[in-house]
């Protein structure tokens, strides 16, 4: 479906309500098109290059976009050459005509001029997703990143340069809403009032296009002799991925492209226990860092879903080992240098049990009526940690106290102890394969007037 239409009109009439007879001069073809697709909002910047044959005087260029999701308020045209001899005088959205804009361009040139039309459209989207393959001992992981681009914009984009933006842009109006208005800028709304910042602050991207799932077969990107490279660079607070060469993405299609691959990433199997957050279960996290030491760190990693597999045999033994599926986890955007923790869900092969072993109160305070107004509470907990796996693991245990003041006394091998905040402590234990560790802590908490 081809719905964008540019008609180049010759009009030697003065700019006016000239909507009557005009001469069709050319229907210029698109020379080059570039798509910059955002993932935090339903938004794509399209840069459309065409050569127009200008004449001296006022040139009128009609641009129509029926059945697309283009935001008409974002339309701009810019000469890419001889810009000092061309002036874009106005962009007219004629009355009672939808999806049509007419540029008036004053030209001192009677020649072919490359022009660039830019606009924002809704309907194109992309997302990142990942596949991780753990070594049999789960100490290393191979990480493969992919991006999937969906086109539901109503427009076929042939041989387009595709660029993807990672980052959170501030959006006031949704492009899809702007595209569906009867009048590009709406109607005057008396009484006039300044429309403030959008309520609620940030626009949250709507996954309107996720439902469509007409993925190209794996063969599509593989038809090229080698997988395409993706150039990555930071711009402002965002990251720009530019896919090598051009892509053709017809309307209603989507396309999967490999984005990066890193091998032998050292990973830590981290198991977390925090009753207030996870209940009485141990959660398995896979942790590594987006830096050079982990064979990563060139760019931030866009958030997405990671499916984790485990190779059943070593690479040295077999090139294509059988796999077992370990689980999946979605993660957030990871800046360069930041730790990554992937929540792979609850496990039963690592256990943590925190038992209250002793409870007592003393040091009472009484008021003049003889009632108790203050006392001390002493609780002793025993924590037993079991690693039943055949590999070493790291276990992180957090304990929260409902008290403003407390004193703690740790007994036994409790690993690394850390006070996290006013009412939370953390124990980090390195557990060898198939091992058990027991430690205790006693906490003194003043209650009532003893708190003071």
């Amino acid at each position, binding site marked *: 479906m081809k719905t964008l239409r540019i008609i180049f009109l010759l009009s030697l009439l003065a700019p006016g309500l000239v*909507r009557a007879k005009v001469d069709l001069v050319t229907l210029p073809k698109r020379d080059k098109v570039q798509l910059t697709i955002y993932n935090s909002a339903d938004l794509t910047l399209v840069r459309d290059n065409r050569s127009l044959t200008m004449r001296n005087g006022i040139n009128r260029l009609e641009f129509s976009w029926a059945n697309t999701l283009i935001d008409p*308020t974002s339309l701009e045209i810019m000469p890419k050459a001889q810009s000092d001899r061309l002036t874009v005088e106005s962009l007219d959205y004629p009355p009672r005509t939808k999806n049509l804009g007419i540029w008036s361009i004053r030209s001192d040139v009677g020649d072919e001029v490359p022009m660039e039309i830019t606009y924002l459209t809704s309907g194109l989207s992309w997302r990142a997703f990942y596949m991780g393959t753990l070594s049999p001992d789960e100490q290393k992981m191979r990480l493969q990143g992919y991006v999937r681009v969906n086109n539901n914009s109503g427009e076929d984009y042939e041989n387009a340069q595709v660029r993807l933006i990672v980052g959170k842009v501030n959006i006031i109006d949704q492009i899809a809403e702007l595209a569906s208005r009867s009048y590009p800028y709406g109607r*005057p709304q008396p009484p006039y009032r300044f429309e403030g910042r959008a309520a609620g602050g940030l626009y949250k991207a709507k996954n309107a296009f996720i439902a469509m799932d007409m993925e190209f077969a794996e063969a599509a990107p593989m038809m090229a002799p080698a997988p395409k490279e993706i150039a990555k660079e930071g711009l402002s607070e965002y990251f720009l991925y530019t896919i090598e060469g051009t892509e053709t993405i017809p309307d209603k299609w989507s396309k999967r492209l490999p984005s990066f691959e890193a091998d032998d990433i050292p990973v830590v199997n981290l198991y977390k226990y925090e009753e207030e957050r996870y209940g009485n279960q141990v959660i398995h996290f896979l942790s590594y860092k987006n830096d050079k030491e982990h064979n990563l760190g060139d760019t931030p990693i866009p958030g997405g879903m990671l499916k984790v597999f485990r190779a059943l045999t070593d690479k040295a033994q077999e090139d294509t080992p059988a796999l077992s599926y370990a689980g999946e986890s979605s993660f957030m955007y990871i800046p360069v240098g930041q730790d990554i923790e992937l929540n792979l869900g609850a496990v039963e092969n690592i256990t943590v049990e925190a038992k209250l072993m002793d409870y007592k109160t003393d040091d009472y305070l009484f008021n003049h009526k003889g009632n108790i107004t203050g006392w001390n509470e002493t609780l002793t907990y025993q924590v037993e940690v079991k690693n039943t796996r055949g590999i070493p693991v790291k276990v992180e245990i957090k304990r929260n106290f409902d008290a403003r003041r407390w004193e703690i006394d740790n007994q036994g091998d409790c690993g690394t102890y850390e006070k996290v905040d*006013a009412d939370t402590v953390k124990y980090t234990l390195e557990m060898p394969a198939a091992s058990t560790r027991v430690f205790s802590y006693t906490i003194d908490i003043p209650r009532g007037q003893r708190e003071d």
Partner: protein
Amino acid sequence: MKTRYRWTALMVPALLLWSSTAQARIKLVALPEREAISIRLDNPAATLIEEERVLTLQAGVNSVDFSWNGVSIDIDSIRLTPLDHPGEVTLLNVSYPPNEAALVWELSSTAAREERVRISYLLRDIDRLITYTLTANKEETELAMNSYLVLRNFSGEDFTDAAIMLDYGDTFRQSVGNEGTRQMLFFTKDGLALKKVWEFDASALPWDPEQLDENVGIPVRYEIANTAANKLGADALWAGKVRVFQEDGHGGTIFLGEDNIPVVPVGDEMKVYIGDSRDIVVTQRKMKEERANIRRNKKGEVVLYDTDEVIRAELENFKDTPAALTVIQHIRGQWDMDECNMPYTRKDAGTLEFEITLPPNGKKELVMQYHRRNIR
């Protein structure tokens, strides 16, 4: 009885002119064409239309009938100004016929003459929006500003070759039909200095991003001073929607974000919130909150106490460039700072502002220890 002749064109304010003598002998003099029209949009609340017509007046009293149909004119706003002989052509009175969108001017002229008059009125359903396109350079040190005037005409009237003007910027001679919208570039400046600011407000953003399932972005904004030193400063910048782009170093741009801005008076800064940085991470925790200095009444009830509090904020920059982070902290009630490891300014009784430069790929820690007085 006085007879009036009147001509009303559909949807067009029309003028009819005749002279009347004291004996009510009425004679049609002319049906003057509109000679020039301007649409003045400097007041965002109402649009002023001014048109000039040449009236052929006779000596004595002349009646001019002005009527409109299909448009909505604020009747109390209509003014008539003689331009050629203001002392000799005098408006005597204005009368309003019942149940009609019309009025009749009585003009006295000292002689028979052609007089150019200006008719001004406020017209409804025609207004303008201002939009901005800012394009920053790749280094984000300066930007180019394009400001567009968008005329929305839903007044019922077609305007042909009208002068369209704001209070500053270019004047346009354009036509715009009823229900038409026209966008015009009215102001452009490049090389404007740009300041980029990151801001963490402890009352607006979550303290512990680790606990959340989505990234906490630190809001980033561009600030552009509306001052003569920054090539602006001649006029207040109108309120409107701003779209920000940045040069990508490959001959194109990327879209950085958009915001609505209020009017920016001269001397102020245009502040445009473009988006969120996820490469700056602030993790803030309360490390201590304990009561001290407790006073009780005779019943043993607490009437006065201090709370000793410690706030620790870890400020991490994952970018390979330094970042100027503004941290805003809030302390309620009566308080005294016991110890703070970074300088701050008090913005009001309960608001502290820190200007902190974070090194590339580095972090800093802000620790505040203060006590608050509590009265019960």
